[in-house]
């Protein structure tokens, strides 16, 4: 380190602030970040190549395991894409059950995130309270689908398990309790001075930058832009269920926290509405084994943002090409922009602000040949 120049602080691949391994090299002048160099690809598993080796039904289980927290979003997008290839019409009861599971997953993912944000700020008590409430959602999902994560409730052509009436009543009762808890935690987050000092004005992403740097999900909505795949391009039954798209004008980490908390309350309302209007009927139709040559794209609003799957079939029982674009890849460019000019202490808050899910994200590595 020469006199007067910057210190290089490496974040990762192993760091307590990152829940998954990625490498960020920060150049720090005093306490202010001057330059960020990210390097991704530490969790690249060759998933897209693995998709081409197995049949469509077996690939469902591979798609589920791309990510643990948003596994249902991946299987919903996968079945939507493959059902678009065939094409296949899914019975309405199955659509509603998929929607209820997707919203339950959004609840558990957002409460996980708010806990992690509190933990990054040093607010361990709120982290423990939120994760205690999240355990109850996991128990609920275990009762409905058989597992806490990687639910395996989706299949091509419908869902595999039904929601009984007593399960529906249990979910509704729990939603009331959970909504009350979330409102209480929101009050704490809005008035706790130490937390506000760590999140207000931190990681500002102006709306124009957000659009030009391809931000997605709550990161985009916290900059005031009303963009949600559930409202813009309704899939499943979102066209029939009334709900609000939550935005906030703060553009900072505080706005992202508030957007996610209010989305949790909105999800609770959606679940209650869907359970009250659950249609009768069968829950699955048998799909064909081989699929004629076709191309299809599926878009889903995962808890972290817009998730895109693309499939191409060639008449056999295995796909020819499958591509997954995870929402964190879209948010990465914007996070590198917001990190410049931040204090070192703000780095974990800003990194956590996009709700990074690096295992979803690592789809390809960029190799640079030295001349």
């Amino acid at each position: 380190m020469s006199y007067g120049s910057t210190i290089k602080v490496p974040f990762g691949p192993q760091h307590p602030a990152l829940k998954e391994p990625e490498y960020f090299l920060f150049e720090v002048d005093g306490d202010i970040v001057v330059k960020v160099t990210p390097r991704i690809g530490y969790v690249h598993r060759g998933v897209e190549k693995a998709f081409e080796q197995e049949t469509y039904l077996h690939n469902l289980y591979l798609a589920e395991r791309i990510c643990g927290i948003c596994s249902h979003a991946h299987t919903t997008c996968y079945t939507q894409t493959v059902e678009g290839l065939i094409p296949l019409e899914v019975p309405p009861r199955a659509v509603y059950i998929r929607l209820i599971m997707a919203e339950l997953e959004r609840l558990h993912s957002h409460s996980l995130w708010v806990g992690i944000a509190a933990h990054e700020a040093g607010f361990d008590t709120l982290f423990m309270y939120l994760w205690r409430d999240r355990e109850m959602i996991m128990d609920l999902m275990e009762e409905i689908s058989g597992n806490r994560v990687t639910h395996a409730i989706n299949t091509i052509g419908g869902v595999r398990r039904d929601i009984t009436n007593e399960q529906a009543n249990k979910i509704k009762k729990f939603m009331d309790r959970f909504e009350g808890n979330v409102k209480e935690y929101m009050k704490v987050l809005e008035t706790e001075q130490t937390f506000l000092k760590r999140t207000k004005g931190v990681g500002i992403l102006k709306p124009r930058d957000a659009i030009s740097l391809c931000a997605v999900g709550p990161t985009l909505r916290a900059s005031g832009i009303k963009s949600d795949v559930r409202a813009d391009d309704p899939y499943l039954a979102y066209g029939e269920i009334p709900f609000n798209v939550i935005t906030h004008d703060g553009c900072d980490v505080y706005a992202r926290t508030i957007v996610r908390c209010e989305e949790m309350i909105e999800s609770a309302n959606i679940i209650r509405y869907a359970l009250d209007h659950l249609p009768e009927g069968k829950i699955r139709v048998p799909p064909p084994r081989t699929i004629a040559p076709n191309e299809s794209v599926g878009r889903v609003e995962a808890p972290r943002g817009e998730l895109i799957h693309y499939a191409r079939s060639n008449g056999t029982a295995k796909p020819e090409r499958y591509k997954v674009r995870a929402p964190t890849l879209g948010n990465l460019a914007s996070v590198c922009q917001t990190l410049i000019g931040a204090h070192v202490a703000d780095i974990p808050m800003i990194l956590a602000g996009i709700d990074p899910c690096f295992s979803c994200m690592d789809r390809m590595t960029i190799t640079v040949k030295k001349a």
Partner: protein
Amino acid sequence: MVLYEIVGVFIYPGMAFLFGLAFLYEWIDRKFFARVQNRIGPLYTGRSGILQPVADFIKLLSKEDIVPASCERPVFSAIPIVYATLPLIALFVIPITGSALIAFEGDVIFLMFVSALITLTVFLAGWSSAGSFSRIGGIRSALQMLSYEIPFGLALIGPAISAHSLSLTKIAQWQAANSSWFLWLQPIGFAVVLISLLAELELVPFDIPEAETEIVAGWLTEYGGRRLALFRLGKDLELVVASTLVASLYLGGAQPLFFIPPVVILILKSIIVLLLISFVRAIFARFRIDQMTSGMWTYLLPLMIVQILLVQFGIGG
């Protein structure tokens, strides 16, 4: 006579007793912190987990000690021993049993000096470790000391002015003789001393030098094995210093109550202070270093000056 002194220094109220107190206080802190967070805390080692701090200490002693190649070896090795010894020295002047092992006029100044030395040790630990995280942690702790040192010193001086003595033992005895504690005579001083002690002990909201999610473990990052065990022992001893200091200065110190010996009363009072520190630790998030320095200089120092002026004008003993 010499045997009496040796027993006094090494067994009671010396090192063995103080180490036992340190482990006990760490257990109380962890259990209470866990209960506030709706968890259990240590449970299985010993009855209700009371041997957990001892088990952690012994486990750390048996772990491999990795020394980074580019560190300053002599400083790196000596710092843990110094860090574990300084709180012990501070504890020798605090009247735990009613009379301290070493008592002289100027105790309070000596205590402030030892706490400044402790922070200097922390800075050296971060500097000699030669890693970017350690260096940042060391610098942050030095900055933190610049902020809380003056309010802390003034908060110790407030009771000294009222009791007309700079000896901790005499201040505690003054409170017993006048049956009024500085807790209600100088409440601003009590609040300020608690906040500055949180900054000195590096607990949330001021655990900036070792912010786990930002700089891994700050100045502690490169230490492991035996050296880390000594650091943790030093931290627990600092906890004992902090709670017994506040108990002696502001809560009346070691006074006998009916037939209960004074040392038990002091331990009870310091456990109340410890529970207060643990509770405050649980309900706040962490500050940033620039927010902390500006907050301390803007709020704590003027409050303390107001308190000292009040004492000079006769309000508060």
